[in-house]
């Protein structure tokens, strides 16, 4: 995804729970708390603690953790309606 598109996409999903896939294959799920030109911050759900995100999850509050936009290959809403 082009970086500018990705930035716009992150802004659009600000405050919503998303699922981010990175170049290394890792997947992060959480609410977008902040977006800058080259980073996006997400706060994982507390109840995803056992999901390998526990370390961040336990912090619970604040911005969560940042992911470089350049590392991201895809971002979608974490849950959605489908036909």
């Amino acid at each position: 995804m082009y970086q500018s598109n990705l930035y716009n996409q992150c802004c659009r999903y600000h405050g919503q729970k998303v699922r981010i896939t990175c170049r290394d294959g890792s997947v992060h799920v959480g609410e977008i708390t902040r977006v800058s030109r080259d980073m996006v911050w997400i706060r994982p759900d507390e109840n995803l603690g056992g999901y390998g995100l526990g370390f961040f999850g336990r912090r619970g509050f604040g911005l969560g953790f940042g992911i470089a936009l350049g590392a991201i290959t895809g971002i979608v809403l974490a849950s959605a309606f489908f036909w």
Partner: protein
Amino acid sequence: MSNSYLDLLAYFGIGGAHPGGFNLTLSLLEDENIQPVDSVLDIGCGTGQTAAFLAERFHCQVTAVDNHPIMVEKARERFKNRKVSVNAMEGDTQHLDFADNSFDLIIAESVIVFTDISKTLKELSRVLKSDGRMIIIEMIAEQYLTEELQRKVCSLYGIHEVLTEKQWILQLQQAGFTQVDMINTPSEFIQSDITDINQSKNINTDFYDLWEEHNEFILRNRKFIGYRTFSCHLT
């Protein structure tokens, strides 16, 4: 025939993209009595999540068909990665390249509504064995839809019509499915978690706009448009 909504699902590569999601698929199929000799058709297979599950769980002969080349490509990628033997191919639900009486079980998860419903049902009844069964999950009109709403649904999803539950049953019967039963599923149309995704690179922002439009549309019209699961037999 192009369909932007189906393109969206293909580019985002979302598995279980039907009402109820993959959880509904599991609850419908997990306890089915499917034998290794049975031939199963997953029509409108998408990225192949259900087809892969069938092959892994039951070791049956699975054929997965979709009319979208990107879906078929992603389905093949999945089958290869999971090392399951599934015959994946591009195909048109209205003109299937199979002999009469080919399949013991057919599964369509929110597929038929995107086609000419009566033609597809006739074609599926042709390729189903006379003692076979078909399970379908499809969009329905929960109550009377105004002409405006009907038009909106059709243009948003590229479909021809939204049938009521009764109309679905009638169409199924006319296609030769003499025994049609409804399977009880959660009646409310809820969001499903996206846990299975294979996203294409550089998705046009138009598709994000379309996703948003679709999401807002459903939130506004959930009372009017829902889904049903039908279990269908020819005899």
